């Protein structure tokens, strides 16, 4: 029983570490999508990050992704300057948190 629990913890830690290692790429993808005005794709990517980051225990990144998604939903079909600024602020928060998460190896 203890062995099974240990194995589960090991699997979980590995999954979380691998996810953390890719967080900066996920945030970079959001930056690239917003840079080229691909707002629908950015909204979808933010939606995914909101769910996955939260599930893996990265609450700050999940919360920032939720802001990004909500901003883009409110601003459909295309965000105005205020919405883009709010999106950029949330993206900056996610970027800082992703760097920390990657550096700490989750």
């Amino acid at each position, binding site marked *: 029983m203890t062995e*099974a629990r240990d*194995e*589960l913890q090991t*699997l*979980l830690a590995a*999954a979380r570490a691998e*996810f953390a290692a890719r967080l900066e790429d996920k945030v970079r993808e959001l930056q690239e999508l917003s840079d080229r005005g691909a707002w629908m794709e950015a909204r*979808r990517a933010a*939606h*995914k990050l*909101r*769910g*996955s*980051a*939260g*599930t*893996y225990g990265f609450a700050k990144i*999940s919360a920032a992704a*939720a802001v990004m*998604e909500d901003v883009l939903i409110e601003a459909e079909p295309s965000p105005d300057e205020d919405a883009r600024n709010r999106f950029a602020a949330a993206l900056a928060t996610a970027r800082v948190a992703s760097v920390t998460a990657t550096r700490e190896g989750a």
Partner: protein
Amino acid sequence: MKILVVDDDPDIRRIAALALERLGGFRVTVAASGAEALEVARGQQPDVVLLDVSMPGADGPETLLALRSNPATCQLPVIFFTATSSEGEAQRLRALGAVGVVPKPFDFADLPRRIRGIMEAVGTESGRHD
């Protein structure tokens, strides 16, 4: 109990499968799209489908309708998985025919209990054990 987890996000598929297999004792099959889910559901006849709402191609609601339109899968209980957690959205998804809605992010350790709770509430668990 056999469960089919459908999500285009590999990170979600991975951790959901881990939780359901290792903590919940489920037999888990995964699919990365609505189209793949239809094929797997027809072939493997899971006891329940955990279906992501937001997917490219056929999204969750479209996939649910496709499952309902096929005699081989029309009775399958479907639980939606969504990062849009408002009560209005949950009601909309239940109105489509889902037996439950699990919000994302989800608590890894709590997921198996939630799925079993939903299945027990709708009474579909009895007689479908392996």
